[in-house]
């Protein structure tokens, strides 16, 4: 009876999912309700988790509940620690959820809501969740080894080295891009800048409270910090209305870029835990709270999506970023569908906390499902706006025009009605002077989120507060990633330099700290500066570069996973990782080719350099710099592709060798030890 009911229940989920996916795929013309996306996503995730992840768990990975995990065998009360599966799930989700699943889908909404939604659902269920799950399990079976170590042991030395270089390259590009997003969100916005500036004294106060008043009570002080941040957001409106104060907190993009670089260097080189650790806690608190609140807001309001299913920009002429739907939609949306960076978390802290092998399914596959749901929420937030407003916010002045009237005329001519007055009215409603050309995705997401929140809680009069809450949430979040990412990259460079000259590897030796911090900040600062000075807004060139780098790291992770699956005598099931790998190779290599060699100067780095070089003589220093930057971006893309090609060749040699019997099939797992939990459970 129970089996029949369960069967009928799952048939119902499948029918509802098919109907919802069908509705959003076929529907054209009239706007649709966001609940269709929610229903489609919920059903796809439920079916993917129940059936596909179970298939992988039983048929391929053969999860063994009797095998002791490193958390049990190597338990030391610090990094190796047996932890409740739901606690590990929360910990893992908090580590993988960043600005990527929010920003990428907002940018990709220029193609319409359909491509992004389909890629987020299919990409997560068949690729992203699978990658996170298998890498987590393989790391658990290897004493919690990192992706680079697994690549070295299972694929070869080349694989390990390239995975290491790819991680540093991605970190640098990522930090440059996310810093640019903060700059674009804060420039000429005294309200937003004041709110972010206030997080510093608030964090210091939290640090003093944690150290002197209630040691270790982080949740308590984070709640207090959150209340103070809300007060700062509320107070920000008075700053923006006061001429003298507003002037004090109004910065141009280059000034903000310099301030952020100084912040990044100080955060990496100085012992400032009293500021950084509380800010990190505050950021996590706001992040988890806001994601939950947004989910409730979307279900409660179930807004209408005004963006069409597909826009005319699928042909590659989009103003937000240039390039056709294939491959650029799949590069732009990284973290919501598949992110190579997740493989680092799945082979970092998480495998050292897993109590039973069987829990890797829920933590690895399940947490990525939750991350993908965040991406669906971002798509909804971007698409609830009228398309004209969306394009006015996200398009650079170099594409749509320098004045409000010119911008409105350009966007209206695309079939998305817009007036300068409606933009002014929206800017006024959110407490900004202007919302034109706020590229980067963060302001557009903030407007969408403010729209959803203000309709659910508080009405139109709270629109400005919600907008600045959203901007604060994103900026705080990104600044935390900037300081944490700079320090992680600094440690990685120090570890490598330690092999060349031992003192450079000492993480407490100040000359080494200063030199490596300067090196890392200089590297991402270069990309940030390039973006700030780019007449096309920077996002056009830098976000695809980040997407390519991130997906190439996923390619490395899937190569490692496929190699291990073949070594485990499961070659007949290798398609589970091989198909996403083939798709990613097609996407990343095509995108890389376009970014390097496409004849359109809006798409191809070299084409843009050629067009600028053919311009008037004598060339200005700014033009010369843009030409150099384009050539540099092309070179970076080329180097990444060559490196990943080497990993692919190395992996393919392994696969062919094993399948033809020329190589020994032996996985390098830690020895089987029976778990003590089996005896405890009888």
């Amino acid at each position, binding site marked *: 009876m129970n089996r029949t009911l369960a069967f009928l229940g799952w048939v119902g989920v499948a029918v509802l999912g098919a109907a919802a996916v069908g509705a959003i795929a076929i529907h054209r013309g009239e706007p649709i309700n966001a609940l269709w996306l929610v229903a489609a996503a919920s059903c796809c995730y439920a079916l993917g988790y129940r059936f596909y992840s179970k298939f992988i768990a039983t048929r391929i990975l053969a999860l063994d509940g009797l095998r002791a995990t490193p958390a049990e065998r190597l338990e030391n009360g610090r990094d190796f620690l047996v932890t409740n599966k*739901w606690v590990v799930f929360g910990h893992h989700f908090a*580590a993988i959820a960043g600005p*990527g699943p929010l920003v990428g889908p907002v940018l990709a909404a220029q193609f319409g809501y359909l491509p992004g939604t389909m890629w987020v659902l299919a990409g997560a269920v068949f690729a992203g969740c699978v990658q996170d799950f298998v890498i987590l399990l393989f790391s658990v079976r290897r004493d919690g080894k990192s992706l680079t170590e697994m690549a070295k042991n299972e694929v070869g030395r080349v694989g390990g080295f390239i995975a290491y270089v790819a991680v540093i390259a991605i970190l640098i590009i*990522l930090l440059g891009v996310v810093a640019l997003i903060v700059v674009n969100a804060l420039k000429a916005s005294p309200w937003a800048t004041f709110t972010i500036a206030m997080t510093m004294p608030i964090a210091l106060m939290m640090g003093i409270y944690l150290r002197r008043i209630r*040691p270790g009570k982080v949740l308590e002080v984070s709640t207090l910090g959150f209340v103070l941040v809300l007060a700062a957001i509320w107070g920000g409106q008075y700053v923006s209305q006061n001429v003298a104060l507003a002037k004090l907190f109004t910065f141009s993009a280059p000034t903000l870029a310099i301030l952020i670089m100084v912040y990044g260097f100080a955060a990496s080189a100085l012992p400032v835990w009293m500021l950084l*650790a509380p800010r990190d806690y505050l950021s*996590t608190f706001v992040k*988890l709270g806001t994601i939950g609140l947004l989910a409730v807001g979307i279900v409660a309001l179930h807004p209408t999506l005004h963006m069409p299913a597909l826009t005319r920009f699928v042909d590659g002429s989009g103003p937000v970023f240039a390039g056709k739907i294939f491959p650029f939609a799949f590069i732009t949306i*990284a*973290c919501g569908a598949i992110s190579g960076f997740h493989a680092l978390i799945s082979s970092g802290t998480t495998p050292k906390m897993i109590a039973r092998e069987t829990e890797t399914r829920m933590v690895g596959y399940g947490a990525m499902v939750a991350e993908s749901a965040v991406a669906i929420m971002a798509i909804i937030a971007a698409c609830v706006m009228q398309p004209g407003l969306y394009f006015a916010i996200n398009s650079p002045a170099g594409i749509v025009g320098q004045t409000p009237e010119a911008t409105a005329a350009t966007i209206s001519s695309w079939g998305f009605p817009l007036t300068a007055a409606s933009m002014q009215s929206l800017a006024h409603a959110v407490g900004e002077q202007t919302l034109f050309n706020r590229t980067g995705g963060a302001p557009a997401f903030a407007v969408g989120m403010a729209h959803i929140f203000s309709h659910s809680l508080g009405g139109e009069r709270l629109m400005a507060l919600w907008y600045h809450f959203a901007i604060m949430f994103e900026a705080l979040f990104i600044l935390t990633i900037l300081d944490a990412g700079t320090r992680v990259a600094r440690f990685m460079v120090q570890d490598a330099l330690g092999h060349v000259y031992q003192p450079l590897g000492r993480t407490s030796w100040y000359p080494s700290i200063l030199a490596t911090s300067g090196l890392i900040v200089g590297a991402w600062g270069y990309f940030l500066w390039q973006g700030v000075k780019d007449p096309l807004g920077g996002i056009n060139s830098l976000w695809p570069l980040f997407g390519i780098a991130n997906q190439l790291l996923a390619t490395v992770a899937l190569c490692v996973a496929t190699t291990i699956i073949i070594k485990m005598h499961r070659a007949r099931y290798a398609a589970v990782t091989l198909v996403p790998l083939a798709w990613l190779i097609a996407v990343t290599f095509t995108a890389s080719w376009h970014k390097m060699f496409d004849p359109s100067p809006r798409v191809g780095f070299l084409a843009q350099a050629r067009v600028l070089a053919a311009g008037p003589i004598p060339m200005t220093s700014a033009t010369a710099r843009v030409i150099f930057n384009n050539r540099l971006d092309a070179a970076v893309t080329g180097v990444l592709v060559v490196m990943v090609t080497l990993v692919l060749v190395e992996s393919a040699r392994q696969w062919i060798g094993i399948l033809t019997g020329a190589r020994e099939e032996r996985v390098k797992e830690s020895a089987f030890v029976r778990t003590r939990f089996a005896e405890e459970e009888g």
Partner: protein
Amino acid sequence: MKSSLKRIRIFAAKVLSTTRAALQEVFDEAAYSRFLNRAGIASSSEAYAAFRREFEEAKMRRPKCC
């Protein structure tokens, strides 16, 4: 009816305690408790400073995703 209510109450309590434990892990409160247990000391300003010194570098090496 009574047993159903009891089951719901037990389930709700379990959800709350698990959520609390997850938040304590995410916000490093659990790591601090473990540190105090390991060192056999009570919570104090000095103990927290020692915990931060031991914990900071390991935490700084953890990647955070995009």
